[in-house]
């Protein structure tokens, strides 16, 4: 039997329609209060003129007011209900991005692109070994030709490649 669109399940992590979003409201309220306290310390006025803290203080106040609206207002329905929270993929993806920075600054742009491209394709996107290798090498070559040869962008270059 088909499920009615009105009773679609929310993805894990997203609140169902009609619930109150206390968590988001609380996070925003904490951020807003922190910003307001720090702005206050910077000084709201200075010699009769607006001080460096005035504007962020006002913005923090707006955020605090909105956090109440978020906490007490309805939670919007998820945009795409066909999603599933995948924490391992998420953490791996972020770790891989940080690995990219490390490889870029130590070994060079092409090695970083090929290694991270291959790892992403094979282990996050679950593509075949062959496609992952071919595509990663192709992207590495394109990056070299476009960023280094054509555009001459001063990216850290691998020792074995000419600029």
């Amino acid at each position, binding site marked *: 039997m088909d499920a009615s669109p009105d009773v679609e399940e929310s*993805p894990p*992590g997203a609140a169902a329609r009609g619930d109150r*979003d206390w*968590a*988001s409201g609380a996070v*925003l309220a904490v*951020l*807003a209060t922190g*910003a307001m306290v*720090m702005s206050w310390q*910077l*000084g709201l006025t*200075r010699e*009769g*003129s*607006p*001080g*460096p803290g*005035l*504007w*962020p203080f006002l*913005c923090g106040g*707006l*955020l605090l007011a*909105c*956090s*109440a*609206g*978020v906490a007490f*207002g309805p*939670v*919007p329905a998820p*945009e795409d209900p*066909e*999603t*599933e*929270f*995948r924490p391992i*993929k998420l953490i791996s*993806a*972020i770790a891989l*991005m*940080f690995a*990219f*920075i490390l490889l*870029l*600054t130590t070994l060079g742009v092409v090695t970083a*692109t090929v290694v991270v*491209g291959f790892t*992403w*394709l094979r282990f*996050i*996107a*679950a*593509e075949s070994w062959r496609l992952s290798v071919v*595509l990663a090498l192709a*992207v590495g070559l394109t*990056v070299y030709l476009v960023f280094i040869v054509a555009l001459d*962008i001063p*990216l850290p270059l691998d020792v074995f490649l000419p600029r």
Partner: protein
Amino acid sequence: MDTLNAFWSGFSVAATPINLALVLLGVFLGMVIGVLPGLGPTTTIAILLPITFTLDASSAIILLAGIYYGAMYGGTITSVLVKVPGEIASVVTTFDGYQMARQGRAGPALGIAAIGSFIGGIAATFLLVLLARPLAAFAERFGAPELFMVAVVGILLVLAIGGQSLPRSAAMVAAGLLLASVGQDQVTGVSRFTFGSMNALGGLDLVAIAMGLFGIGEVLANLDKSGPSKPLASRIDGIWPSREDFRRSKGPIARGTVIGSIVGLVPGGGSVLASMASYAAERKVSKHPEKFGTGAIEGVAGPETANNAGSTMSFLPLLTLGLPTGTVMALMFGALLLQGVTPGPTLVADHPEIFWGVMASMLIGNVMLLVLNLPLVGLFVQLLRVRMGVIASITVLITLLGVYSLNNSVFDVVTCIVFGLVGYLMRRTGFHPGPLVLAAVLGTILETNLRNSLAISDGDPTIFVSRPISLVLVLVLVLVLSATSLKALRSGRKDLNQTLKDHDSVEGATR
């Protein structure tokens, strides 16, 4: 006559071989990337922003404008073939476009969308050319209080019309304004929210933030999705609409042009509201409104025309008032700032080559869009088969390399990744990154003009109601606030009544 001469001079900028190539490249790249699953115009522009750094300002904005309307049309292709709108403005196209594709008429749906977009885009460009100078001349009378109020009204209209939850969008605006205040205070030199980091003294890089929120955020959100969408047709035959299709589409295209040109000027309206208003209008004037939603070509022709006219017109407030009316325009604003050009009332006079060059390139770009679309639609259909994982890996690499190349700074890349995670969390919790980026772009303008206004008036805030233009803007502000509150109150009352009704019926059933 002066305007026409100036417009004509724009062709000397737009029609140089390099700029012609850039328009072609922009439209093609925009269409290709706009078709790829999970990447809409905003993401496309965000990840391709670094390409523009090596170009001069007019070439950069010509390329980005090409990418914009190319990606908008790419979104139409996915709306018709897989019922996945590339961006919100194409949602309406899914109603009848997808139904036409199911009936084996994907070709005419895409054909009429391209023709309608072409006519809407060309008409709106001419209107833009005519309106730009008078509007810029009027805006030149703006001082700090007026500029502050224009930006406030702009943000508020985006919130009121944007169609998203008001407290959530407003919270994102506040967060964006706070982000813009990170770094050294321009007046006193005091560092704000830098936590001792020397890298943050100059402020967080807006492009890194936008690329993180839209590029990385979108990729991370797509990791949660199960698989690629399957196109309804593996090849498209006969894209040219029939004589009957043209007869039925004439009126909707004409009305769509007018609606899009008017609505596109309103901040927050842009292409989204334009396409929705056009669809509503077509249903209203149709003798067979019941056919809408079942594959009526009028439901594709009108909204697609209005959508393109609206997105073209949204350049007017950006280039003449310095007011980005949506997320894409906020990114364009950022791109111009990176080039050392501040969009505003003096842009037309100070940088005529940019303004008129962009106008002329829009005409050229719309022709290229039509010419490219007809023969290449088969290729675009094949692109729909590319798996999300492949797109994600390439998007991540291009985004990170692009951000690094901004300033050769690891700090920018870390900022981008952190904001990617923030963007992902925002998507999962029902927040949209658009208002945040818009506010982050406008934050410095708002703060500078607020402080200048208060300095002019010796700290007296009544300066905002004591000058005629600023007073009118305050009245608009009050009007929008009242209308929005009234709407929220009505909808809250409706929800309450519904809840009470549901509660009664549940109680009745359990008794």
